[in-house]
């Protein structure tokens, strides 16, 4: 073979950080071809998709707004991913968090209690954790694969949302639309900048990144999670509890996804509908990988992923393309990232082996 991959003795640090950049460049390049193949002007497509969303400060605020649930979910998931705990059901945990927080809002939003917002955030976190606890329990108690169980719970969560907004929680004055009543102003997260939709959840997101960084890099528990992921046997010999690793990994993801869900309904939505999340829980997995499971990286990759969402909306509006083009770009990005990662562990060698 003219091209071979030779294992490196040690993973390349440089390539570890270069590979996401390479992946983004490949995605952009592929995007140009894609626009061309769709009969659009590639430069115009690039401009509309990647530049137009950022043209003014409102655009930037929308970018940060959409990046918020992504960074929250991603930082939570990365705790588990580091330990090879594959929670792929963040989308469901996000929905249940939204339901739990939303229930507090619907029930208490006119009481005038100063504890309303904290209670909502707490309920969101607990809801997400509850939903993540199911696969954690089934994994630790019955050895059931958390990938499949957490994913199945996404579908169940979606059906649960659908049932509540079509049934018991439907706004009686809502002309029969499947949605709850609008929350009272008291149950809405405070807006950070007048004239935009950017709200306090962005600060929660930044806080989560900081806590995530401290946990992963400065705590013994975080260290144990890392060892469990990189060297299972070493972790066992050291006596680190494998069950605890599963629980922490799952609950961290559920907690943050739940808060992300609450932030959506108490932020840009202001009520619960069937469309709480355009797949944030799934996109967050890409964010986590692209950010190298590192909170700083996750911050930047959540901005990029948010841009892909906004670009999709722009492409729909100005180029007559379905907004699902965002998801094509998201998937491509992950493909290119995984492909580029070969250089982290292997050295390309050209020519025949001697």
């Amino acid at each position: 073979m003219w091209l071979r991959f030779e294992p490196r003795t040690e993973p390349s640090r440089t390539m570890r950080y270069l590979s996401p950049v390479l992946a983004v460049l490949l995605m952009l390049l592929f995007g140009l071809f894609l626009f061309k193949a769709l009969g659009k002007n590639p430069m115009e497509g690039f401009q509309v998709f990647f530049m137009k969303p950022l043209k003014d400060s409102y655009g930037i605020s929308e970018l940060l707004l959409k990046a918020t649930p992504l960074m929250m979910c991603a930082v939570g998931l990365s705790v588990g991913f580091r330990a090879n705990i594959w929670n792929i059901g963040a989308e469901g945990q996000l929905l249940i968090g939204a339901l739990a927080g939303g229930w507090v809002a619907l029930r208490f939003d006119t009481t005038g209690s100063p504890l309303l917002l904290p209670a909502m955030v707490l309920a969101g976190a607990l809801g997400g954790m509850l939903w993540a606890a199911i696969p954690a329990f089934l994994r630790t108690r019955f050895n059931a694969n958390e990938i499949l169980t957490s994913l199945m719970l996404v579908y169940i969560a979606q059906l649960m949302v659908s049932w509540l907004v079509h049934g018991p929680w439907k706004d009686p004055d809502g002309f029969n639309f499947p949605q709850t009543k609008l929350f009272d102003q008291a149950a809405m997260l405070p807006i950070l900048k007048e004239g935009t939709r950017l709200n306090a959840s962005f600060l929660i997101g930044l806080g989560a990144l900081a806590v995530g960084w401290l946990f992963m890099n400065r705590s013994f528990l975080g260290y144990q999670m890392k060892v469990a992921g990189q060297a299972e046997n070493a972790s066992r010999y050291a006596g680190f509890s494998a069950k605890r690793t599963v629980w922490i990994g799952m609950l961290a993801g559920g907690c943050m996804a739940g808060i992300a869900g609450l932030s959506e309904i108490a932020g840009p939505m202001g009520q619960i509908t069937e469309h709480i999340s355009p797949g944030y829980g799934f996109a967050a997995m890409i964010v986590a990988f692209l950010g190298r499971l590192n909170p700083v990286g996750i911050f930047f990759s959540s901005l990029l992923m948010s841009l892909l969402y906004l670009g999709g909306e722009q492409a729909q509006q100005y180029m007559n393309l379905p907004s699902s083009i965002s998801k094509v770009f998201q998937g491509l990005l992950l493909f290119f990232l995984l492909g580029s990662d070969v250089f982290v562990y292997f050295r390309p060698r050209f020519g025949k082996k001697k």
Partner: protein
Amino acid sequence: MEQSLFTSILFATIVAGTPLIITALGELVTEKSGVLNLGAEGVMSVGAIVAFAVTHHTQNAFYGVLAGMGAGMLMSLLFAILALTLMANLVAAGLALSIFGVGLSAFIGKPYESIALASQVPVRIPGLASIPYLGPALFEQQALVYFSWIMLGLVAWFLYRTRTGLTLRAVGESPVSAHDIGHPVLRYRYLATLYGGAMAGIGGAFMSVFYTPMWVEGMIAGRGWISLALVVFATWRPLRVMVGAYLFGGAMIAQMFLQGSGLQLSIPAQFLSSIPYAATIVVLVLISRNLKTIRLNSPASLGQPFLPDA
């Protein structure tokens, strides 16, 4: 039970189980070679929309199914290049395939959303179809239902009665030994992965061309994932895949019959729709709680990378 109700329940169960059998039989062979491909959901989605579009344009379901199969193979080729040649993390690569496939199918499918295909005419097997009760349910089915039965036999025969099948299993159990005695491990894994993709593509095609027959974004609705669970449930044995698929098929149509039964149940539709997903979880728990069953039956190298020259 009167004949018509029994027959129509059996008929609908078989129809609902068929895409699961086809997809799970593909994944079974892939996993037997040691490759865990979590992308079935994405491959089915792309297979479904490609088959739908081609059937719509050619007015020929056969071309549609072929195109769905081809699309499935292309998708799984992407996965194979990432996971086998570039040695990416299998779980991540499979997830990528699912995310990409579901997104791509939504993108391709947008213009086809309000189109309905003509229903495909079932194939009646003379003689057998006249058996009371069973005949109309079993032998007046869509061609792909018979295909799923034939594939079941072929896969079982291939895995357990042919030399190539034996080698494939050896590759899955111990790639290093298989490599040492001269078997091309990566070639087996590539082919097994492509076969899995082809079958998932056909499974998707069955959904959009025969089952509904129309295209709706997200119509695969977890069937790819359920197929993965089925392989575990079946402890990697072909015949049990079929049994499991029909059990799930039954769970999926339960809602239809409960709602149409006139029993005036006050169960919300969403609860009934969640039965297959809840059942998947229950089944996984039941089969996985016995660690020994899983260890004994799963291919020993499942999900582990293989470096030819390491």
